[in-house]
């Protein structure tokens, strides 16, 4: 029996995580983070509304485990929200869940759990963990491929993985809901949360407008040759691969190819120009515990929802940088998102996609 802190959200996954750990005989404590919300929108934050907090508290009461809420408003704002705004300010499409898992959940909250005397911290993430024969902590894709969250958890270091438990990753989502129902948990049929918690169910553009209006400044739309085709109303309003809403008249449909933050220009082109076979990633975390120095074959995911694509991963001399060459061009490679490399179900590592050199020309 170990002492385990479960990071609870009031949702079905973390609730069932607590149930499973309790059934396994662990000494379980529930913890919930109070995250940052825009002033006046506290009631709609995806992860810590009064309602979800009441749900989590209720689940803890039903399971008869202690439950505590930890204030993370300030640090969440300082790290995750700042990361989100900075990313857009740099012409990227940031993924704040990566920053949250790295700095809030698996750093700030983990430290609190350890301070409470916990041996492990568990979450309701759909991933699996195994220990290799040589003692490495291995992060694996979830049993349920549709719910797999290994993409956002590739940021975990060996040290953090050693403290992590992911009880729901061994099950399909439908089984988790059935387990919740069998336990009589009222959260069993709660809809899955989506979107970013602090956007409170709204579009991110409005959030940027309110919180960092200078990011949304008008600029020019150009083609690869630098020819001006029109005006854009702020780079964050566009995503790579986007076709609709450009306001351009052209015989061929035009797509967003890249963003150049330095000149505040949006680069567009025809379908044939879309996509790239290569990308560069930095801040690489070697999740599986081995820093690769030789090129290797892997399946690479470039977005949370993207299908893994076969590629050669080529480590640079700097151990936190790689270059990835895909077997076939990928359409939506987006700076600010992560590239995560897999061998079968095993997460080898992952890093942050940065703008490629030719896009900076």
């Amino acid at each position, binding site marked *: 029996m170990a002492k385990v802190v479960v990071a609870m959200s009031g949702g079905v996954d973390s609730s069932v995580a607590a149930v499973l750990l309790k059934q396994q005989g662990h000494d379980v404590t529930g913890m919930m983070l109070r995250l940052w919300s825009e002033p006046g929108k506290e009631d709609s934050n995806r992860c810590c509304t009064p309602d979800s907090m009441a749900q989590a508290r209720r689940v803890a009461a039903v399971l008869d485990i202690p439950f505590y*809420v*930890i*204030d993370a*408003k300030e640090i969440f704002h300082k790290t995750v929200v700042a990361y989100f705004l900075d990313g857009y300010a740099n012409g990227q499409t940031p993924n704040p869940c990566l920053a949250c898992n790295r700095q809030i959940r698996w750093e700030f909250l983990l430290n*609190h759990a350890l*301070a*409470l*005397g916990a041996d492990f911290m568990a979450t309701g993430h759909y991933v699996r963990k195994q220990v290799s024969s040589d003692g490495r902590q291995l992060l694996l894709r979830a049993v349920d491929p549709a719910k797999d969250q290994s993409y956002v958890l590739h940021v975990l270091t060996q040290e953090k993985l050693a403290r992590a438990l992911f009880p729901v990753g061994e099950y399909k989502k439908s089984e988790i809901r059935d387990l919740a129902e069998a336990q009589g948990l009222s959260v069993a049929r709660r809809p899955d949360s989506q979107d970013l918690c602090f956007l409170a169910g709204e579009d991110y553009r409005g959030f940027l407008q309110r919180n960092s209006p200078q990011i949304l400044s008008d600029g020019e739309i150009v083609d690869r040759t630098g020819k001006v085709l029109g005006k854009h109303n702020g780079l964050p309003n566009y995503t790579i691969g986007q076709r609709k809403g450009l306001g351009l008249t052209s015989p061929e449909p035009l797509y967003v190819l890249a963003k150049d933050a330095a000149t505040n220009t949006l680069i567009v082109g025809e379908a044939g120009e879309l996509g790239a076979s290569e990308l560069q990633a930095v801040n690489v975390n070697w999740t599986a515990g081995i820093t690769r120095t030789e090129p290797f074959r892997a399946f690479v995911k470039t977005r949370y929802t993207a299908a893994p694509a076969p590629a050669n991963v080529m480590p640079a001399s700097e151990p936190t940088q790689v270059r990835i060459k895909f077997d076939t061009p990928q359409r939506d490679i987006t700076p600010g998102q992560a590239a995560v490399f897999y061998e079968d179900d095993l997460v080898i590592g992952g890093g942050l996609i940065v703008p490629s050199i030719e896009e900076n020309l």
Partner: protein
Amino acid sequence: MNKVYMDYAATTPLDQRVFEAMRPYFSENFGNPSSIHRYGQQAEAAIETAREKVAAVLNCSPGEIIFTSCGTESDNLAIRGAALAMREKKGANLLLTSRAEHHAVSKTAEQLEKYYQFQVEWLELDKFGVVNPAVVEKAINSSTAVVSVMYANNEIGSINPIAEIAEICRQRGVLFHTDAVQAAAYLPVDVSKLNVDMLSLGGHKFYGPKGVGALYVRKGTALIPSQTGGGQEFGLRAGTQNVPYIVGFAEALRLSAEEREARSAHVRPLRDRLIGSILEEIPDSRLTGHSELRLPQHASFVFKDVDGNLLLTLLDAAGFACSSGSACKTGNPEPSEVITSLGLSRDWGLGSLRITLGAASIPGEVAALLKALPELVQQTRALGRN
């Protein structure tokens, strides 16, 4: 792991003797005190005996005791009832109270201001959270309807000079109410010595049951009832009386008065040891409230750069149940109005801790807390820095 309860100001366990006194009035003697028949008469007798017991402790007549559902209800009835009655009687529309009051008083005053066109003047507090009688003297005037100052503060333990404030109010012909919910477990509640017009009590602070309270109302004091109906409790609090709980309340109060000195003598040295050691051993710590004029079971502190909520969490995980002046179960801590009214800056105000002892507290528990606390404060500070 051993669990240690050190939050007696929040609530106390029911005294076994009180429980025994209550027991016959659930299903054996279950009558409605308002009924004509023998069942009703027996229930009524139980309530009237209880009323006499309470009156004996308060040194008043039984007809001056109104049973309510809790201390909060008593405060509501006193302040709202007196404010409305005094306006009707003499056109008075000013309420005098302080930010250190329990919300049962301050929120009632705020509601009277917002919806009933009363004016509230918030009495200035000294650095111990105490209301100086001179401040009342200065603020009181012919349009004052009621003055309400608590006997002892729940968060910081300070005791107010109730008799002196009451004397000023009496001279000026203004009603005076005191919330004695925290005080009654340890301080004498003789209303003739205290010279108050109204005094609120709650049963569960002195080893009685939750869900029952009382209000002393001096004979001849006009009150407009909040709850209207069948005319129970001299027409001031309608609704069938909660017989077993009223019986329990009275027995608990009686025991509390009878054993007052022994109870104080039990907790005071433990409390003094807590205060002395904590201030000595934990850097950047301060006592909140008065060092001498405070409840004998009550120790309260602020620690600089400490998230009070987190400290409570770590304490609970280590087996110690305490409280704070920013206690918030939703992770959204703010310093309480009481802590804020002491003039503490935010970096101090968020780090409050209240330790309150009671009948089952023993030296070993105090020693265990004193051993654990410095490290937990240090841990809380370290977690707050990242």
